[in-house]
């Protein structure tokens, strides 16, 4: 399997990144703070006021290292990449297939089936691991209902029906999400999913983690030559990375949500690490953000079994594997898109 490379996250405001030989140098306050060989990197993510020399950007583009710029709070601003890689023929195929109602239904169905199965697994594991501390019956009930909708998906006639079932499944899952928080329950309470802006600590953590996931999925799609903007489940909307959002659905609960839950349940984050802005938006401080970034990186090193390729791979490579399976499906090597089921 290909090697999982590191992502360099730069969150210190006023940092300046430049190329020195085959290394990237991070300067803070005019001083060299860090120097890393570029070949160990798979991506660079800069938060807020971080500058990057054009030569470093060019070098990264040449080496297929995605450089993304996010706002200090994790909103995507821009990504820099070199000449469009991959093949125009593949992208044309992608567009044609995305216009075919049968293909969109099949792909959307497989993705949402994996999404529901995976989110149900998160619920079931909470029951198993924290039996005494969770509302067992509410969780079992939600898991059972999600299972029912999961079975219904097989009969979905079109992508719209898939989207409808997805909506119900997500509502059931987020309806019991607060029960999955077993520690610091008073400081971290989840009532509903909100993101523009996140109105509580849990939503702030979720939104930020989803941004990291989106960045990784998007680069994986670009690496295999697919257009992240044109999806099957998510309809085209200017500026929206539809296909990246499609692929993210399989990973949200098992990678992002579980990461957020374990940060709270293991007391790696605390309520004091967040502040509330005038508009009600809850934002995390630098220390909390750093904790999350480190844990996300650690999580990516963890190995999981991929049931379709039947190999153990680090979570960080899942995005690449799924992007490549999508490309192989669109090219006709596979007779469907094999979504990722967590075991």
């Amino acid at each position, binding site marked *: *399997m*290909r090697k999982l490379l590191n992502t360099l996250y730069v969150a210190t405001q006023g940092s300046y990144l430049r190329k020195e030989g085959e290394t990237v140098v991070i300067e803070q306050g005019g001083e060299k703070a860090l120097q890393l060989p570029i070949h160990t990197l798979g991506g660079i993510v800069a938060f807020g006021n971080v500058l990057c020399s054009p030569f470093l950007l060019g070098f990264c583009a040449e080496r297929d290292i995605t450089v993304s710029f996010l706002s200090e709070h994790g909103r995507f601003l821009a990504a820099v990449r070199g000449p469009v*890689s*991959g*093949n125009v*023929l*593949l992208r044309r195929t992608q567009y044609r297939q995305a216009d075919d109602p049968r293909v969109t239904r099949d792909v959307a169905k*497989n993705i949402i*089936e*994996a999404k529901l*199965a995976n989110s*149900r*697994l998160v619920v*079931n*594991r909470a029951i*198993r*691991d924290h039996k005494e501390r969770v509302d067992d019956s509410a969780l079992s009930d939600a898991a059972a209902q999600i*299972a029912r909708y*999961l*079975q219904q998906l*097989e009969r979905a006639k079109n992508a719209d029906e898939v989207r409808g079932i997805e909506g119900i499944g997500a509502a059931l899952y987020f309806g019991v999400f607060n029960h999955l928080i077993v520690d610091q329950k008073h400081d971290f309470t989840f009532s509903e999913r909100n993101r523009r802006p996140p109105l509580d600590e849990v939503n702030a953590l979720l939104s930020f983690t989803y941004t990291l996931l989106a960045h990784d999925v998007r680069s994986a799609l670009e690496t*295999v*030559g697919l257009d992240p903007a044109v999806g099957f489940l998510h309809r085209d909307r200017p500026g929206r990375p539809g296909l990246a959002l499609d692929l993210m659905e399989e990973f949200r609960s098992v990678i992002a949500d*579980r990461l957020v839950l*374990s940060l709270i349940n293991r007391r790696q984050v605390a309520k004091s690490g967040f502040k509330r802005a005038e508009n009600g938006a809850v934002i995390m401080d630098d220390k909390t953000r750093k904790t999350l970034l480190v844990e996300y990186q650690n*999580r990516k090193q*963890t190995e999981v079994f991929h*049931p*379709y*390729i039947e190999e153990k791979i680090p979570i960080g490579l899942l995005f*690449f594997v799924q992007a*490549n*399976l999508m490309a*192989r*499906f669109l*090219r*006709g*090597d*596979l*007779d*469907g*898109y*094999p*979504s990722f*089921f967590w*075991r």
Partner: protein
Amino acid sequence: MVDEDELIPISALQHVLFCERQYALIHLERVWEENRFTAEGNILHERVDIEHHESRRNYKAEYGLAIRSLSFGLIGKADVVEFEKDDAGRIVSIVPVEFKRGKNKEEDPDRVQLCAQALCLEEMFDCEISEGQLYYLGEHRRRSVEISEQLREKTSGLIERIRIIAASGATPEAVYERRKCDRCSLFDLCMPKTVDGGGKNVARYVQNQIRKSLHDEDTCKEDV
């Protein structure tokens, strides 16, 4: 004659000879994975790839010479081309020299590449080339390669094959062969084990996963 846009890079000949799918992944799909071998190859070529030349009386060597043939539809670069001249300054012989990693492999890819270079040079200088040389860095010596009729046929056959695949725009199906695939730099992008034959029936895979997910709760491994 071939349109300039359709010129085939000489490197494609080695790829198609090794594996038609590898050729398509690199040249049609444009996916490329560096591995140790390609990285070493690049470093090696940095040494000879800089365009410059060397001349003495009656002898001239061009480094990194851009070459092409419109009749064969080839384009590429020759590591070194040696020109021998007579006293009147007329070219009497042209010898392409290709640098290779490691030791003499007696393998066709290197010879085919050399032959393709010879075809280009013959067209460019309107001459006949009977030999080329392979320089293996591992053994620090040159070996002469005859640009034989047989080698020419093999090379033009591969060019023809490339044209057919390129025109179809389709990547040939994967066939997993351990000996070849396991050392191929494109293994992860090609997914030969996954898509070879057994790569079908995704619907059944998804159904199995759902069934397992609904019934085998105990398969859950311990929480991370």
